[in-house]
């Protein structure tokens, strides 16, 4: 953390005062600008703390943290992402589901719901950011991070189910807060409660950041890109209204419509990407070459191969949330006798999210030639730390331009997809945030409403602020969750190992029956 950032707190007050006085004094500053200023200055210190580099390098320690964790889990569970893959598919297909349990949440439903929380802007905007800064090579590191992240996800989701709270009325609450407390107590390790509280705090921030403001922000960019520029707070208020209707008003119909449309949007997105790849089949070899070459040389992109690696890992983690702990909250609500089965099912998430969908986006951006190269050297042209693009766009805009260059009307579909993805991600994260909130403050109608109202306020802030500060804060909050969660996972992984060994031996002996 830099001294300058520590000093920025007083400016928060200053900015708040400015907002209060804005009606009389600051006519020049629009609402958007003011919101942005307050936001950037009040979150800067947190962002720099999370993203500070190892001394003497430009390598953020948090990226190293995630990579090491994913590697440790991959090795500790002896490549469970490959060993357990076919069994995971069988579980999702329902081959091991007891027909007498029909009517309970199936593995497929748990996976689909968890996916609709993670598949979204990370896959569309995040990848564009990664490739736009880190070059094509970022894709390689993203895929690698996705593959290894499968093991992290497996570990956390197994624990989420194992240590959830079950209440008399049949509902359940689970997630890192619960396994940190109960799991640590079971192993006789102190400090579980402190970690759980820290996790819950970061989870609330993550829910408000990446699960909310980033989504609102990108949704606004999409809409204004089509209908023309207009102030972000207008989008914010409309979005906040709809989110409010769903999470406070209990308007299930909107949520269930979204839940049904989102998967089709996801399929359509992948289909469109495949069509573009097929049409440009002659360039696929070249694009893959760029990805591999860039991964190790950086292709002249600022930061070289380290830059590509950092961007790849960052965006992968942000997209599939492996190690972050959010998925553990989503999966823990599933009714199953075997926690391992949920862990195995959840390891498919990073695969679908990152290895398949993110790679599609990256390939489309690379193949459609959105990023400008210097004809003399063949290297990418870098301006202000970003690769110059044909339309001077970044984030969703870059993805949209890439798809639009091949299928002219696709940006409209993409805009709709972004808005819907943003919305479904918000709904999922409002749930994760709420679980963290009730863990801290206890269950109760009034307390729940308070969180939900705060959540809606942040929708407006997110839509009004600029992308830069929002994306920084979103990343920082979500990675802060990973810091706490992964410490817990290290201590609790022997428990998962025991569960896994027991499950696999019973599967081998035929004690766990196949029903189909």
């Amino acid at each position, binding site marked *: 953390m830099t001294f300058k950032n520590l000093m920025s707190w007083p400016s928060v007050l200053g900015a708040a005062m400015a907002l209060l006085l804005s009606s009389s004094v600051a006519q020049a500053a629009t609402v958007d600008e003011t919101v942005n200023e307050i936001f950037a200055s009040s979150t800067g210190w947190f962002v720099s703390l999370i993203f500070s580099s190892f001394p003497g390098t430009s390598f953020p320690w948090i990226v190293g943290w995630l990579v090491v964790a994913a590697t440790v889990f991959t090795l500790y569970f002896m490549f469970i992402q490959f060993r357990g893959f076919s069994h995971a598919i069988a579980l999702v297909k*329902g081959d091991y*589901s007891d*027909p007498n349990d*029909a*009517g*309970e*949440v*199936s593995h*497929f*439903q*748990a996976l*689909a*719901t968890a996916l*609709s*929380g993670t598949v979204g802007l990370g896959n569309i905007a995040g990848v564009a950011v990664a490739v736009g800064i880190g070059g094509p090579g970022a894709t390689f590191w993203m895929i690698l991070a996705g593959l290894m992240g499968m093991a992290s996800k497996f570990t956390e989701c197994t624990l989420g189910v194992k240590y959830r709270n079950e209440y008399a*009325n*049949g*509902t*359940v*609450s689970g997630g890192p807060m619960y396994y940190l407390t109960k799991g640590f107590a079971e192993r006789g390790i102190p400090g579980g409660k402190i970690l759980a509280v820290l996790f819950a705090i970061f989870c609330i921030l993550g829910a408000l950041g990446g699960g909310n403001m980033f989504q609102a922000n990108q949704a606004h960019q999409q809409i204004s890109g089509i209908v023309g520029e207009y102030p972000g707070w207008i989008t914010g208020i409309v979005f906040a209204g709809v989110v409010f209707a769903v999470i406070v008003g209990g308007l*299930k119909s909107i*949520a*269930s419509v979204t*839940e*049904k449309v*989102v*998967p089709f949007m996801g399929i359509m997105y992948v289909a469109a990407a495949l069509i573009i790849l097929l049409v440009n089949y002659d360039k696929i070899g070249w694009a893959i070459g760029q990805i591999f070459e860039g991964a190790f040389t950086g292709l002249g992109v600022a930061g070289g191969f380290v830059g590509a690696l950092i961007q790849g890992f960052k965006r992968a983690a942000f997209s599939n949330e492996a190690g972050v702990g959010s998925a553990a*909250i*989503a999966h823990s*609500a*599933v*009714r199953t006798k075997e926690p391992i089965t949920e862990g195995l099912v959840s390891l498919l998430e990073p695969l679908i999210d990152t290895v398949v969908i993110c790679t599609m986006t990256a390939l489309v951006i690379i193949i459609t030639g959105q990023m400008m190269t210097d004809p003399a050297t063949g290297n990418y042209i870098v301006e202000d730390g970003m690769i110059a693009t044909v339309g001077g766009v970044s984030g969703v805009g870059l993805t949209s331009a890439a798809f639009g260059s091949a299928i002219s009307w696709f940006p409209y579909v993409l805009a709709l997809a972004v808005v819907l993805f943003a919305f479904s991600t918000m*709904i*999922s994260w409002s*749930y*994760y945030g709420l679980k963290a909130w009730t863990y801290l403050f206890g269950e109760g109608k009034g307390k729940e409403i308070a969180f939900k109202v705060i959540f809606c306020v942040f929708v407006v802030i997110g839509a009004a602020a600029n992308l830069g500060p929002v994306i920084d804060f979103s990343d920082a909050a979500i990675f802060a969750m990973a810091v706490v969660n992964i410490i817990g996972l290290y201590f609790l992984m022997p428990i998962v190992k025991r569960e896994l060994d027991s499950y696999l031996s019973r599967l081998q002996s035929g004690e766990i029956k196949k029903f189909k």
Partner: protein
Amino acid sequence: MANVLVVGFDPSSAGERAVDFAMDLAKLSGSAVIIVHVLEWSPYSFLTPEEIEERHARRKEELSRAKESIIDPLVKKLSAGGISVETSIRYGHVAETLGAVAEEAGASQIIIGRTGGPGIASRLFGSVAGALAQSSPVPCTIVP
């Protein structure tokens, strides 16, 4: 082993006709009757995180509601007259579930009531009777 008849029942006149028919048939042939009420459910539908959390509680509610308001009144009304009548409430696709119950019980036939005419809805989406005719593992009687 006694002959078993599986009846698909829902609270409608068609459902009642099917049960009446099955009871008459059971009396004549000395068969046992299993009355099945199926709650439509697909393991491949999409749920929100909150729906997932509440699912187990909802399922319990749905099962007890189906028992109290659908199965219990029916059983009370039936004059069994020495016929063995079992009831079952299941989740799933109606036709598939009736077929599965029939197979489990070694039933000799499935009896259901016909609900609608050849309307546009059943043309588009198919009917239980149609699906059962195609997929039933045992002979199937559709009571008009």
